[in-house]
């Protein structure tokens, strides 16, 4: 428990130094004190994560992010083209995507990634499915094929079981 508080506090301290830009003893000690306090408070608030699931998840992100950013750019261009098209070629549709193979961290990431990509966004999150609104039939079908879900599921690594 102490180790987790210290890890969280040192990450927060890096943020403090970045934002303040001052390296004086007074500023750093005040920062360290408040970071420890916040880390302790959050330890009491947050859900237990004894296996460092979240940390493991973040270490795997560099593999996922380049693909995701390309996907964001691609869907941005697609939606922009549809908006600028004189005939507005859209076919809005609601659909449901199953998230049974994802754990909680992955579910949140998946829902957020869906919303970050224009053309799709999350309407509702249930225990094992996500309700999505898509601007076109095509993007809805692409979501059902589940490439993004598989990539996020790969981020979970050895924590595959929910």
């Amino acid at each position, binding site marked *: 428990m102490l180790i987790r508080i210290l890890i969280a506090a040192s990450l927060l301290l890096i943020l403090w130094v*970045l934002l303040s830009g001052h390296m004086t003893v007074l500023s750093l000690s005040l920062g360290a004190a408040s970071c420890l306090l916040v880390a302790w408070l959050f330890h009491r608030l947050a859900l237990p994560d004894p296996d460092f699931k979240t940390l493991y998840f973040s270490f795997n992100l560099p593999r996922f992010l380049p693909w995701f950013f390309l996907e964001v750019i691609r869907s*941005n261009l697609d*939606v*922009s083209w549809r908006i600028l098209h004189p005939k507005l070629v859209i076919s809005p549709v609601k659909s449901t995507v199953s998230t049974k193979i994802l754990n909680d961290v992955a579910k949140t990431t998946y829902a*957020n990634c869906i919303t*970050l990509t*224009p053309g799709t966004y999350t309407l509702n999150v249930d225990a094992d499915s996500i309700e999505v609104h898509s601007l076109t039939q095509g993007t809805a079908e692409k979501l059902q094929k589940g490439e993004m879900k598989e990539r996020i599921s790969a981020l979970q690594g050895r924590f595959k079981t929910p």
Partner: protein
Amino acid sequence: MLVASWLLLGLGSVFCLIGTLGLMRLPDFYSRVHAASIIDSLGAILILLGLILQTQDLLVIAKLILILLFMMLTGPTAVHALAHTALLNEKSSSTDENHQLPE
């Protein structure tokens, strides 16, 4: 460097404009949210990247990257809150035939 910066700023502004246009052109509430998320994602990313190229100060660059990260978290949250509320309203008023979402 400066040319690239202005190019990115210009492109970002273009995408913000397209998003705004979409907000007005698209026919219903749920579709309009898609247009808003263009402004949130590519518009904001390009403008912040352009701003990063404007400075050599590492501290300012770090802060701009932080702004980018926080926008990537708050944007989807806001969109989801908006859409989820619309969905709940729609469900609770489904008995009312005349009720429609604002267009």
